[in-house]
């Protein structure tokens, strides 16, 4: 059995707990013992990205203390939060050797969910069934550009029985979410989103899949506002069997 720690992220915790449950189900089905450090909250990325380093540091310190007391790979169902924890959290503790050391220990254990399945567990076929659906995959920017996550989720989707995956035109362009960017520059965010959704619709897919619920929340909200029937799912939900519709 492989012991893993689930860092579920604040958005999954509060808005999409079913994604967290799907992550646990899939990991358990593939031989993992999943632990959930119960005092976890938020990695601090929302504050960090808008320049509030003091507040980000407080949140990051809490996260590090909770996770450093555990063992095993820390699985995160978000490329963006994983990127924060891997590429930014340690630098917040420059000048404090003890915390910087702890941050580096934690950061070395962090892995985004889909890349954990493929790169560490060696799974390409998760044994999932999703009959009669056509899906397109949006590679969210931080996971894709900063952690190289793209081929892993696409491979997993390609092996879902009954699911056809179609390429998203201009897939590598941002969806316009960008965290607080989405409410600080709402019209610009919405305009970028609109371009993305037009591309999603052009694929003819009836399912949009990603590895970040943040971008997916923004895109799902936009699709719903457009009156679209395209469903939006985190990859864990797709890999956990037949998506409820």
């Amino acid at each position, binding site marked *: 059995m492989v012991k893993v720690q689930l860092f579920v992220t604040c958005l999954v915790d509060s808005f999409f707990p079913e994604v967290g449950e799907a992550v646990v189900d899939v990991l358990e089905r593939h031989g993992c013992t999943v632990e*959930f450090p119960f005092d976890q909250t938020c990695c601090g990325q929302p504050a960090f990205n808008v320049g509030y380093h003091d507040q980000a540091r407080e949140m990051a310190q*809490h996260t590090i203390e*909770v996770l450093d007391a555990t063992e095993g790979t820390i699985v995160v169902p978000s490329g963006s939060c994983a990127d924060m924890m891997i590429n930014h959290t340690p630098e917040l503790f420059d000048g404090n050797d003890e915390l910087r050391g702890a941050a580096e220990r934690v950061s070395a254990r962090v892995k985004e969910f889909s890349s954990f399945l493929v790169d560490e567990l060696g799974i390409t076929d998760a044994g999932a069934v999703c009959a009669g659906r056509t899906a397109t995959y949006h590679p969210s920017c931080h996971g894709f550009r900063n952690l190289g996550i793209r081929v892993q989720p696409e491979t997993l989707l390609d092996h879902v029985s009954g699911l056809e995956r179609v390429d998203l035109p201009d897939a590598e362009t941002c969806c316009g979410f960008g965290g607080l960017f989405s409410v600080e*520059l*709402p019209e610009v965010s919405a305009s970028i989103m609109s371009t993305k959704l037009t591309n999603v619709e052009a694929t003819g897919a009836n399912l949009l899949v990603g590895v970040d619920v943040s971008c997916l929340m923004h895109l799902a909200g936009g699709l719903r506002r457009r009156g679209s029937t395209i469903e939006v799912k985190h990859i864990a939900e797709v890999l956990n069997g037949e998506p409820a519709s």
Partner: protein
Amino acid sequence: MVPVAFIDRARKGLGSPGVAALNTGSRRMMSHRLTAVEEFPSMDSMRDRAREIRLYSLAHLDELLARFTDEVEAQGGHVFFAADGEEAIGYIRRLAERENVGRIVKSKSMVTEEIHLNDALEAGEFEVVETDLGEFIIQLSGDTPSHIIAPVMHKTRQDVGRLFADKLDVEYTDDPQELNGIARSHLRQIFLDADMGISGCNVAIAESGTVSLVTNEGNGRLTTTAPRVHVAIMGMERIVPTLGDAAVILEVLARSATGQKLSVYTSLITGPRRPEEPDGPDEFHVVILDNGRSRVLGGDTAEILACIRCGACLNVCPVYREAGGHAYGFTYSGPIGAVLVPSLLGLEDWHDLPYASSLCGACLDACPVRIDLPELLLRLRRDAVAQGYPPPGLERVIGWYAGLATRPALWRTALRAAGLGSKVLGRKGWISSLPGKGAAWTDHRDLPRPATRPFHARWKERNGGT
């Protein structure tokens, strides 16, 4: 605190025909770049080399500029160091007066846009004519550039046709070839009558005192050879040590900018006309501009000075493409502008520019010298907060959120409360209208309702605690 202006300017651009034209144009340039990069397997190692050259040059700026100055002077040219725009303008104006200059022609130069040189010279009763087609159109229409290498990206050929018919007394046409021809014949005599030519400088070469200029129109060559006096103006960071180094920069520059192997005209200008040469200016002056660059060099956005002004980061930037170049409010737009402008001019007036990015990172992918633009934007945001210029209202929200996120029991209670409390806001799990700041979300998209049973609660039920 000044009102946040980026969003106000962006609102004017969003969905407008001008920005639609710019969006199409920048996507076309992006795809040209991708093709050029694909065809050139050594591009990645060439980018590494270009980055090394640029960082080396920034680290040795003082000695390189001293060497460059010695070489220019040895060739019979003159070098003037301008601390700011005012000094640069003063020097050029005095020179023009001394040389009895009437008409001045210019080839494209962003640094002259940065210091608003044209306005100052025209106020001094000199006639100034832009000769780059894009800049000529900008000047004729009283506009400002929207892209650092394609200044009229925001205009359609119909716009240009109407402008020419109106200002140049010609028949309306929107045929690009004919429009080119009209500009060409209009400008030809102006070149011949000009007393002074002002050019920019893409790369300056320290070992030989050479100024290099890349254009695709040939106007740069006329500007620098036909008039009696040639003034090249350059940002002080635009220098590299050797001709070989310049060759590397020019190679990645053309591919990244327009997808060309090399621009149509690449001019290397060393000194004024020599006695045995038939063409060229009698006087050659180089104005080296600081205008905030020394300060940037000492700060933690110094890497931005490695920029070679190719515009690739603009073309790939979703914010630039949707909001348009004018949304940035200054000569330099897109990701490079969002970092360079507040770095040069200070955050007090430009603190909203670092926030004009979703931090998607496409700019870093595209940059030929691998400037970590997202990282520099993050540093400027940190500085904006530290200097007291955060986006309005954010401080309270972040503080409140951090307070919850560092108190796990309170966090869990708050999530449950949000789930239960939001029941009143949305039916079927979605909220379509929120008051206050929340409207920034719901004006454009629905919001899922926070879960009544957050993951923490579900985990507890699933595993009986811990």
